[in-house]
């Protein structure tokens, strides 16, 4: 898979701004790396080695990312983020549980094993609420429900989906937030900075047209974001914080393959995210 002197591997099936910035940072540091396209990746049980020593897992598909991380770790590689962190961050329920177990503020949520049970769970959580797919990102198929009637209709559609996993329902309290959320990027236990993400619609995902603006990162939010990254076991994390009308801040989600193009543009020269990622990988390689 890699030559013995090869230290770093970037695993990604899609090269976007973030991956290009990371590759450029590897080159600036004179760090030898290769790029493996996850679509061509396979590994034989028992390992034919030598495995790359440090793998930055930037695979865009959650299932591919999870299996690759586990297989590479088993073959002896250090994978960033780890397989465990990838599994937790890639699943909304596991993220909720990890945050709660650490005592961190996060919106109330419930897991229901059938769409029918989802309706009962929503009564417990209360309206307005949000029905979310367990796996998925960019705000896709995230549906706000204002009342039982709407929820019943949405859950009827959920029940008609073909994948058994789609029938596991995750519901979450809808936080009456401001028209923005806060994205904090954490690398190696340090919060690098923050941006506001604003959107004309209720979802603020940049993939949905949300816009990133510089945000002064306060000590409390920095501490909360670092704790959230630790709670899910992520070396590199994009932590989304949401602030309600009374100024209370809670952790909405933690992203393990953080997209930072908008964040970087908003930060300007204040921080170089790709550089910090590569420097962190170099630290991991030396340990």
């Amino acid at each position: 898979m890699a030559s013995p002197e090869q230290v770093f591997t970037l695993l990604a099936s899609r090269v976007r701004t973030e991956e290009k910035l990371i590759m450029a940072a590897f080159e600036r540091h004179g760090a030898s790396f290769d790029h493996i396209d996850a679509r061509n990746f396979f590994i034989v049980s028992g390992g034919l080695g030598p495995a790359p020593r440090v793998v930055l897992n930037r695979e865009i598909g959650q299932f591919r990312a999870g299996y690759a991380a586990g297989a590479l770790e088993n073959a002896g590689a250090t994978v960033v983020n780890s397989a465990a962190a990838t599994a937790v961050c890639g699943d909304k329920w596991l993220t909720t549980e990890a945050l709660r177990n650490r005592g961190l503020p996060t919106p109330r949520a419930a897991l229901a094993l059938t769409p029918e049970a989802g309706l009962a769970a929503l009564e417990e959580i209360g309206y307005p609420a949000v029905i979310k797919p367990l796996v998925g990102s960019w705000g896709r198929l995230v549906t706000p429900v204002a009342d039982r009637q709407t929820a019943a209709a949405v859950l009827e559609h959920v029940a008609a989906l073909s994948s058994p996993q789609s029938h596991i329902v995750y519901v979450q309290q809808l936080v009456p937030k401001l028209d923005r959320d806060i994205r904090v990027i954490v690398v190696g236990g340090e919060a690098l900075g923050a941006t506001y993400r604003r959107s004309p619609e209720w979802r603020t995902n940049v993939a949905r047209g949300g816009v990133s603006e510089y945000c002064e990162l306060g000590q409390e939010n920095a501490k909360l974001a670092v704790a959230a990254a630790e709670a899910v076991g992520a070396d590199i994390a994009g932590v989304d914080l949401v602030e309600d009308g009374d100024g209370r801040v809670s952790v909405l989600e933690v992203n393990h393959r953080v997209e930072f193009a908008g964040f970087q543009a908003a930060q300007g020269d204040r921080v170089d995210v790709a550089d910090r990622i590569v420097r962190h990988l170099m630290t991991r390689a030396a340990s």
Partner: protein
Amino acid sequence: MSVAVCPECDAEVAVDVGTRVAEIIECGDCRVELEVIGMDPPVLSQAPEVEEDWGE
């Protein structure tokens, strides 16, 4: 800068020197998303559709 052919509409697509394999670019003519599958010389194919589990 090099030039490659759009597999969708046969238009010429400019490919910058710093472009990486697996990067997505857009055809200026038909606006389809294209994946760079080779750089020496540049070769383009239609970009894969977004899958359900994609994200950050």
